[in-house]
């Protein structure tokens, strides 16, 4: 409980440091989360679902760029479909993708919180009605998790740690208290799924943070706060610069690092939090033999 309280305070501070924006849609259901594996790369925003609805800008701002889907065969093809980009204060830009064609507000260059800037649609690569929301800090040149700057979601469901396994000579060994492991250096992975928010179907999401403890010592932290391009590679910035290829072993399988397992008793603890501070924990006591 105290942990959750502290987490919410920290989240509040993060929100304060950027801006407290408004949700762009009234009916909120999160279909895909920031940093999630989407077609072999990090998702750089969030997908919001629901029935077709009006979209408002996160904050007052200025129209910087818009693109209608398929206006000319000479245009770049775009998986974002019809999209708009607004510039807000402090160098923050917001992008709204998959909007209905011909729904976007292009003749008003400065918009307020009340202006409808478009309607959720199915343009681009996603066939269902949705809104792709992306936030960019142009000062620090990074993609920010939009949930950091939006009002907190009412989400009571804990993220779930399905399996924890080690990689030994290319073999996947699922860990449980009875697993017999010989000492050595192994890659440690976890299958983690957060529950979709306000969806009436099973829709897993990436969590907000993953922490790994071995015998109480914190050895790895992965936070889905921001992404930045460093020397041509997209990296999770608050996690020692992890690339997609380093982090994802599969759609929901996260590589937590390579660790030395010495003979004796080892307690593996994995703690996973979602954006509302819900925490899922998995403890696996292991006996490592020579």
């Amino acid at each position, binding site marked *: 409980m105290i942990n959750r309280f502290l987490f919410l305070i920290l989240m509040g501070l993060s929100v304060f440091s950027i801006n407290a924006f408004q949700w762009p849609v009234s009916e909120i259901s999160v279909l895909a989360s920031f940093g999630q594996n989407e*077609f072999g790369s990090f998702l*750089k925003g969030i997908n919001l679902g629901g029935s077709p609805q009006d979209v408002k800008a996160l904050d007052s701002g200025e129209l910087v*760029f818009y693109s209608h889907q398929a206006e000319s065969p000479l245009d770049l093809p*775009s*998986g*974002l479909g019809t999209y708009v980009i607004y510039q807000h204060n402090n160098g923050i830009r917001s992008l709204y993708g998959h909007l209905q064609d011909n729904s976007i507000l292009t003749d008003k260059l400065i918009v307020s919180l009340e202006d409808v800037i478009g309607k959720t649609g199915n343009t681009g690569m996603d066939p269902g009605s949705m809104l792709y929301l992306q936030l960019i800090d142009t000062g620090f040149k990074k*993609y920010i998790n939009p949930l950091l700057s939006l009002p907190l979601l009412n989400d009571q469901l804990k993220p779930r740690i399905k399996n924890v396994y080690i990689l030994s000579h290319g073999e996947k060994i699922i860990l449980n208290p009875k697993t017999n492991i010989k000492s050595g250096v192994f890659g440690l992975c976890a299958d983690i799924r957060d529950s979709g928010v306000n969806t009436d179907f099973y829709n897993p999401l990436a969590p907000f943070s993953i922490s790994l403890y071995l015998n109480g010592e914190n050895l790895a932290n992965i936070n889905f706060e921001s992404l930045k*391009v460093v020397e041509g590679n997209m990296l999770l910035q608050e996690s020692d610069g992890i690339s997609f290829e380093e982090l994802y072993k599969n759609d929901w399988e996260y590589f937590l690092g390579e660790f030395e397992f010495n003979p004796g008793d080892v307690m593996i603890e994995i703690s996973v939090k979602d954006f509302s501070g819900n925490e899922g924990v998995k403890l696996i006591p292991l006996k490592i033999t020579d």
Partner: protein
Amino acid sequence: MKIFKTIIIILVFFTYVINFGRPLNKEITYSPVWVNNLDTSENEKSDPDSVIYPFHLDGTLGYISDIGKIVYSEDLLYGAVIDDKGFINYSRQNKVLVVKGIKGQFQNTIDQPGYPFFSGNRRFVISYDNNSVSEINLNGDILWEKTYGSSLSSVSARGSRVFTSTTDGFIQILDKSGESLFFEQIKSSRINVVYGGSVSGDGGYMVTITGIDPQLISIWKYSENNYHIENSWSLSSELRRHCLTGFSIDNSYAYIEAEQEFFIIDIKRMRLYSMPFSGRIQYINFQGESGLVQILGRNKDGYYLIIMEKDLNKLFYTSLKANDSSLNIYTNKLLLGIDHKIIAYNMEVM
């Protein structure tokens, strides 16, 4: 007296012709050669030596021969790119793109999620989220990939160089192997953004349209291993979407499609010509010093065809009654698509 009067008239006439004579405007003739109705045509075997043209019209794509016979056609899935070597007909979401040849035969696969984009006889894949571009060779291998910190606003290739730009104001020029020759954020405006740009076929110049307050069209010159702004023109800052830019085939002119205007820049004289323009360019052919500017455009009223001289003197304009239209120009042949018909014209300029 009569002879004297005649001599005076002849002298005045020759003086006028010599001193004030003007060349006649160019005359273009388009002679229809054949028409093909895609609805009723079937694929036919073609002479292996015959010239073949790609087409993409009214939900169908394929190749048509010089005498108007369909060599291959198939229905459009979601989107398609096609050139004279092959095509990719793709669905809305793909983990793998399938490349086919001019007779529809399987050529290879591209193991890169995203949408394909052909430019300057080169093949690219743009990631679904628009923040990375990779070049693919004819075997389907990924030659290089570039990832950016915001959405791409344009990618174009000419000669050995590739131009990329982003919505947060970055411009990059890449060489054939994907090595960066130039990478800079344009910070000359209140808001940093690039709406479009291109590099000339010889790599000597670059044209860009950038920023808000001011919004600038700029010509950059390549010298001392870098691009430097040679000249800029200010716009009214009303453009907020991608705009098409390019160079004439002989690299002597640049063109820019802006919000309500079309511009041509004479590179040698650094002179800007403009004309009112509505809608978006669907196809443009601009030879340069020796040729005409031929544009298929589309606005809210439909498709239209404009033929102009390089100083934007309009020679021909017609609106086309069509739900879909396409235009392709090959030396002296013009292929105009109107709904499900392709019409070939022989073109002669006198």
